[in-house]
């Protein structure tokens, strides 16, 4: 996983609540057996006027001129600004892979759906929660200033705006550490392999029926 320390990027506003993972990456693209290549189909149904299928050359498709990511002022955006309950719906990690593949390393919203929130951290993407008032101010600032960019300083837990405003944010200490160091969760867990084995041995004694008829 790529480390996340500070991120400086253009902010793109996606001004609707309950953005679901079906909207972030529609189902026809979930047939891929790889983790990469989802970026061109991020928000496919909003972003293009024609219907997307896997394997299409997206450069020949009809972009929806009204969709926010197609506006020239938001090209090369690295930070996505959203509304309540961002990432709700299916558990598909493809949603995070699509955001990352497109170029977003951070999503800022007043609230996130749990599974999406979790999936972000596993891929070096920072889901950042700010209270609704701060989000409203950011939407207004982004609308008002073409090319609006911010810096997210994860070690300091601060956002720096062009107006020199500093917005502090909260992040779980363990997840922050994993992001900053780019740590692989599995390797960390396997450091506790002996504890897992001991737990399992006890469980076999306490609940033997879980083991005597497993899926052999």
């Amino acid at each position, binding site marked *: 996983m790529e480390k996340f320390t500070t991120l400086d990027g253009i902010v793109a506003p996606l*001004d*609707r*609540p*309950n953005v*679901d993972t*079906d*909207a972030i990456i*529609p*189902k*026809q693209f*979930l*047939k*891929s*057996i*790889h*983790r990469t290549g989802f970026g061109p189909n991020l928000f496919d*149904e909003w972003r293009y006027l024609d*219907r997307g299928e*896997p*394997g299409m050359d997206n450069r020949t498709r009809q972009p929806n001129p009204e969709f926010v990511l197609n506006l020239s002022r938001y090209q090369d955006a690295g930070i996505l600004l959203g509304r*309540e*309950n961002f990432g*709700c*719906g*299916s*558990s*598909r*990690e*493809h949603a*995070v892979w699509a955001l990352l593949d497109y170029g977003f390393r951070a999503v800022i919203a007043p*609230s996130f*759906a*749990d*599974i999406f929130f*979790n*999936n972000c951290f*596993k*891929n070096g993407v920072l889901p950042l929660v700010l209270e609704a008032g701060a989000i409203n101010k950011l939407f207004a600032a982004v609308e008002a200033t073409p090319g609006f960019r911010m810096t997210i300083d994860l070690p300091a837990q601060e956002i720096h705006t062009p107006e020199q405003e500093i917005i502090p944010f909260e992040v*779980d200490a*363990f997840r922050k550490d994993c992001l900053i160091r780019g740590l692989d*969760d*599995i390797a*960390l*867990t*396997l450091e*506790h392999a002996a*504890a*897992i084995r001991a*737990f*399992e041995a006890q*469980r076999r004694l306490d*609940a*033997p*029926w*879980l083991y*005597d*008829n*497993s*899926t*052999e």
Partner: protein
Amino acid sequence: MSGKTLYDKLWQSHLIREDEAGTALLYIDRHLVHEVTSPQAFEGLRLAGRTPWRTHSILAVPDHNVPTTNRAAGIADPISRIQVETLDRNCTDFGITEFSMLDERQGIVHVIGPEQGATLPGMTVVCGDSHTSTHGAFGALAFGIGTSEVEHVLATQCLIQKKSSNMQIRVYGKLATGVSAKDVVLAIIGEIGTAGGTGYAIEFAGPVIEALTMEGRMTVCNMTIEAGARAGMIGVDDTTIDYLSGRPYAPGADHWEQAVAAWHELVSDADAGFDREVILDGGALAPQVTWGTSPEMVTPVDGLVPDPDAEQDLVKRDGMHKALEYMDLQPGTPMTAIRPDHVFIGSCTNARIEDLREAAAEIRGQMVAPGIRQALVVPGSGLVKQQAEAEGLDRVFTAAGFEWREPGCSMCLAMNADRLEPGDRCASTSNRNFEGRQGPGGRTHLVSPAMAAAAAVAGHFVDIRKTAGG
């Protein structure tokens, strides 16, 4: 000291370690796997030179991509075929039990787990699918995970988790005839909202929940995720234990009594405290129909499409306008005036035998209305299909003009060939009415199986409480 909730008990009995900040390592008993969210996890495992920690905790099945017609011909879409074949190969390579596409036990992962007795009380159950909450109906801690977590469970038999808060939703009273578990859970989502359960594990309780069959309880727990909570659960009682008795993967005779004694402990203590409690009058519930593009956009069938301009919250109001535009509906329209042109009976929410019986009862001896262009029944598993055929339900459906299909996720998410075209309007027993969920531009109204069947016959939504009473 207050007692423990069911969730507290399940959490503590699987806890391997926990640091001061509450980051915990949780042991996983059962890992269900399907073709869409697993290939990258197996690839990651191989790249790191790892193997599954406990192969026999895993049960795999292809369900999202499989065709629902002419299985013998294989999968026509080459990309779907590769994904299903990749699951087959991964299961062969690692020695994992899989019910492959042509196995009679194949079906939707959340239907076959309980059907096989592979989901048991007291287990932690995970799957790379948000509707894993279904299995909580058995007094299990069951939740959906992403692909990185699938790989993590494969490699370590554990997950890194933080404990959720406790919520209890009690539904009292007695449901009216024609009102089902689906209506209960849709009403709950309408009440607390799609983010109402975020950060919570939800326990469903009260007389209405206790009176539900296991299949009804699964329907309720299934849609917990649509209320924002990863895990929903219901305490164990005799209904739970009776359901499990004799299932293929349930405990054998030598451990049955011991297991049952342990399972009876899987209820919240009488003095347990919850961080949030919600109470609903089940007796006051009408059949529910969604009108928008989020499951919380739901109203009783005798209600009207709401007026966004009456909503005070500006973000919500804008969301309602967008939803009505997408759904092509006018505020103030009676729900019973809405005319679907497609009907889908299926999905992990409502494709079990009781769902098919309830739907068949609404259409017996009648025909699908002329305005219905397609009506599909997709059983949840091969065994559900067999049972339905043994009861003659398939003939009730086909005589009425429904298509009787092979088991799978089908038009719930339209990853296979079953999908809506732009502008199609569907009465669906599935769980999500998001934009494009059942096919790009398709419009979904979520309802119970009996409501979907009644709409198929009438050509519009009907209040089945009135027809049920005569």
